[in-house]
């Protein structure tokens, strides 16, 4: 029996790595992937609590999170395609027309 705290610590570590990747990466696609990593970390915490409390609601929430993540990925990647077509770059630091 793996203690619930192990899962929660792993979830926190994965979420933190997602935050670090979000801050570090310059490529807009990789930044998007780090958001998916954070969503996955939250899902792990949901399932761990669902098992620890003996309730199924947590798993239903994970299901909804996955569905919303799929919709978000479709729209977000379409926006990335438009940005790449208009600006000719995927580097977020070069998407700075509001600054100039």
């Amino acid at each position, binding site marked *: 029996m793996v203690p619930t705290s192990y899962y929660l610590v792993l*979830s926190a*570590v994965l979420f933190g790595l997602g935050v670090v990747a979000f801050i570090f990466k310059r490529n807009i696609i990789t930044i998007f*992937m*780090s958001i998916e990593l954070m969503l996955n970390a939250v899902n792990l915490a949901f399932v761990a609590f669902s098992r620890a409390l003996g309730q199924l609601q947590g798993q*239903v929430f994970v299901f909804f999170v*996955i569905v919303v993540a799929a*919709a978000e990925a479709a729209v977000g990647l379409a926006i990335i395609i438009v940005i790449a077509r208009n600006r000719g770059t995927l580097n977020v630091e070069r998407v700075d027309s509001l600054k100039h």
Partner: protein
Amino acid sequence: MTLQIAVFLILAAMAVAGAVSLILQRHPIHSALSLIVVMVALAGLYLLQGAEFIAAVQIIVYGGAIMVLFVFVIMLLNAGEEERTNMSRMARFVGVPLGVVFLLEAAYWIARATSRMAQASPQAVSTRDLSTLLFREYVFPFELTSFLILIALLGALVLARREDSD
């Protein structure tokens, strides 16, 4: 050390290694493949917790559909390696300590807060119970998600369409 904890540690090491690799790789396609490793490891962890349905959905939707979309866009845009800038060098000196402090703090407080949590009796969660809950109590949110998917589909089509095609 029981077998379950050993399996947990292996899968957790896989997930963390994949996440670290996502940060360290410079090419987006390598980051995407690292993220697939994380997702497969998480599916294993869901199985370990008795959430078979979520594990299957994780593999099919995340590992399959979403990551294929990512890889497809990377290939479509012919994304190359990240370029280094002054800002990214600055982020290294500020971001690494900040990230490490955040990770340690979060792990410490979670471990402290939940170590006394009562261990509920492990009960097998059947997919039948889950679907009963999903289609009785949560049937309205479930139907809403189908609308959300439809709107996202239309939005993606409208956004990614070429301007000159209309």
